[in-house]
């Protein structure tokens, strides 16, 4: 057996098991229903999508960072905290799979799950096509950006979930971290730093703003830099996730 094929096989198995777990419990349905109703509500009643009369989805994607900030940590909080609380983590790690495989499997399953929720907003795309003549390239990019942002928040939530036994603590930590990622580019945050931090650090923090990368993609341009940014955050967070788990495991 090739080790590489093994890795992918194992991950696939875990993804399937996890996804089955999501849809076998009320969690998935509650999450999807709430996500869809909130996006719908914000799009139609706060952005006034229909009254604005423009065949684009700006008023829809505009809310995604803020909705994901709460909803994605809610999905991520149970990834590890629950396993730790129930003590099933030891069991999981005695199975003939490596920690990396479990982490990647769980992460991918949760990401796919959020992707499914995102894909279920498809009636809105059909709606704009029916009402007007939208630029489908821009809408596609909006979805790509939204999905990547969800993955970024998920990796953060996954990491905080591994830190603690309590789901609530994990949730709060993840929301705060996501809020920081969103607000990093905002003037008050940079102003707070600029008093003492060197300029390169301020720039670095400001460059970690999820919002600017998201709006850059959502305007209809897939830029390598934005993609690399999202992937970087995910890779780093998942790596830290692994490091934490490995340390706990041996503890």
């Amino acid at each position: 057996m090739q080790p590489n094929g093994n890795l992918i096989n194992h991950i696939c198995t875990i993804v399937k098991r996890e996804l089955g777990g999501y849809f076998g419990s009320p969690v998935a349905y509650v999450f999807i229903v709430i996500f869809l109703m909130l996006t719908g509500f914000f799009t139609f009643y706060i952005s006034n999508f229909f009254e604005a009369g423009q065949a684009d989805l700006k008023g829809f994607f505009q809310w995604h960072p803020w909705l994901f900030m709460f909803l994605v940590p809610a999905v991520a909080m149970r990834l590890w905290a629950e396993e730790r609380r129930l003590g099933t983590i030891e069991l999981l790690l005695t199975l003939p799979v490596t920690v990396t495989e479990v982490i990647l499997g769980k992460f991918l399953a949760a990401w796919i799950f959020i992707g499914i929720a995102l894909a279920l907003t498809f009636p809105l795309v059909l709606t704009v096509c029916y009402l007007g003549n939208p630029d489908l390239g821009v809408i596609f990019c909006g979805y790509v950006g939204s999905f990547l942002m969800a993955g970024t928040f998920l990796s953060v939530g996954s990491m905080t979930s591994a830190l603690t036994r309590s789901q609530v603590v994990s949730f709060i930590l993840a929301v705060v971290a996501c809020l920081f990622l969103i607000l990093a580019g905002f003037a008050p945050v940079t102003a707070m730093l600029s008093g003492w931090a060197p300029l390169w650090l301020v720039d670095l923090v400001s460059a970690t703003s999820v919002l600017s990368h998201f709006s850059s993609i959502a305007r209809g341009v897939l830029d390598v830099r934005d993609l690399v940014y999202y992937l970087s955050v995910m890779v780093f967070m998942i790596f830290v996730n692994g490091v934490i788990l490995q340390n706990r495991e041996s503890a």
Partner: protein
Amino acid sequence: MSDGKKRIRKTAFSAGSAVLVLLIVVLVNTLLARTTLRWDATEDNLYSLSDGTRTILADMDQDVVIKVFYSKHVPTVPSHIKTFAQRVIDFLSEYEHYGKGRIKVEIYDPKPDSEEEEWAIKYGMKGVSLPSGDPVYLGLVALSADQEAAMPFIDPTQETRLEYDLTRLIARVQTAERMKIAVFSGLPVFGSAPNMMMGGPRQGQAPWFFIQELKKTYDLIQVQAAADTIDPAAKLLILFHPKTMSDKLAFAVDQYILGGGNAIVFADPLSLMDDPRMGPEGSIPDKLFKAWGISMPTGKAVADYTFATRLRNRENQVENNPMWLSVQADGFNGDDLITANLESMLLPVGGAIDILPDGPCTIEPLIHSSPNNELVDAFSHNQDVSALRRQFKPSGTARNLAVRISGTFKTAFPDGRPGPPEGTAEETPQTDPGAPVLKTGKSPSVVVVVADSDLLYDGYYLSQQNFLGFNISNVFNDNLNFMLNSCEMLTGNPALIGIRSRGTFERPFTRVQALERKAQDRWLDQEQALERQVEATNEKLHMLEQQKDASQRAILSEEQEQEIARFQEEKLKINKELKVVRRNLRAEIEQLGTMVKFINIFLVPILIAMGGIIFAITRKRKA
């Protein structure tokens, strides 16, 4: 080694590896910060260089240096301006790429009291003060040989025009010589200087925005009303609402065009910007128009319900005004470069251009109304719209709102130079008798005639607002683009047209608009039916009145009473119907909105919830 120490060492090792990964990730991101690899997924490639720019970049004679002044050091710059600045710099690197070494982009950070800031001020950059008090520069200057041209502040809200502005800047520094345009205007489009003499200080007025825009590219020559020649060095002549054109000036225009000059004429049956006391005659140079093969009915404006504009009237109600023409894409000639990519224009109270049979030139419509139009008195724009609507009878044929006339022109003055106006006693000395009087054109020319002048009043295409203490103007329709396109076509730089009017930024709900129009038509029908009914009854009553004896005139006959009663009943019924129609006017649209909202907010969630419940039940049964 003890267990504890082992653990500490392991933790330290893991922490170290995490830091290492962080460093690698940051490094990769900083290294990739310079790449410009990207995929522009927008339908019209809004964020890539267009062919027009590439043509101009390929034909450059001079090397161009572009200096960007951007206050990178200020930490409190809002995040969206930072990303915008980055996009501008990225966009410039595309110019560098296509300029094949002839374009160089340099980026400076003008820190306070630095040499860079001195340069920025010298080049006329305009700093914007942030709420925190830091001045921020985001401007650029293009330098080539001894030419320089600047954008003092790059407006983030005008990103869609960025390419046009940049390319125009580069094209402009290429040559020392600027093209000349002669402008004659019956309105104070050039603004006025502050006047301190007459009755206290009066504020001067800035030139109209389109004049400022033209000045960026061309040298403008102001033609005075008393002029008797048009400078032949002018590449183009613009007649803007030429209401007080003397025969002498008309002759000068005639000779200029016969000499091969091009012209744009904004003739108007009624200018909203003009002083209403100045009299009713608009600005239609009949004599010239006749010679060119067109005519415009005096004092008549086009009312068009398909292109009607929603306006607030004096009672503060929103109503559809058919005399303010909001011309949509299907009103533009798609084959002419001037109008090919325009999307919407607003022509407030414009006239109609009729094409006369067997004129000497080729005449092509540029903008036309819909068939759902009627020619009405231009003055009725002051009246109640509902009166206009009741009398409305669509003509069924589209009318021209702007045309392009091309070919070899014939003179409008077959008798030669017009003499001095009758009644003037003194003999005006013949000016320049040596100048030959042309009867037919020396070479072909092009004249664009637009049946409105109000369209270039700032307020009808521009909304101005203050952004961080900086005036920002937002163009909301294609009125200015039409003007600039025409200028560029007629002065022979069509490459720039391809840049500006590309791309669709407005994407309205076409279905909603169609519903709106349908409802409007239905309303009109009902109202007209009621009106006819009233007329018929009146006539009948009148007839009955006539049939009576003189002695009975004072009292109503039975028939009359019956007829009146019948009419009252009918009127009540129709009025009720009208009310229903009025209520239903937007009902269909609201219904569509409700349906769309329901589907998008509740339908899928309900389906998912039902699916979940069914799944749970079946699983319970199995278990």
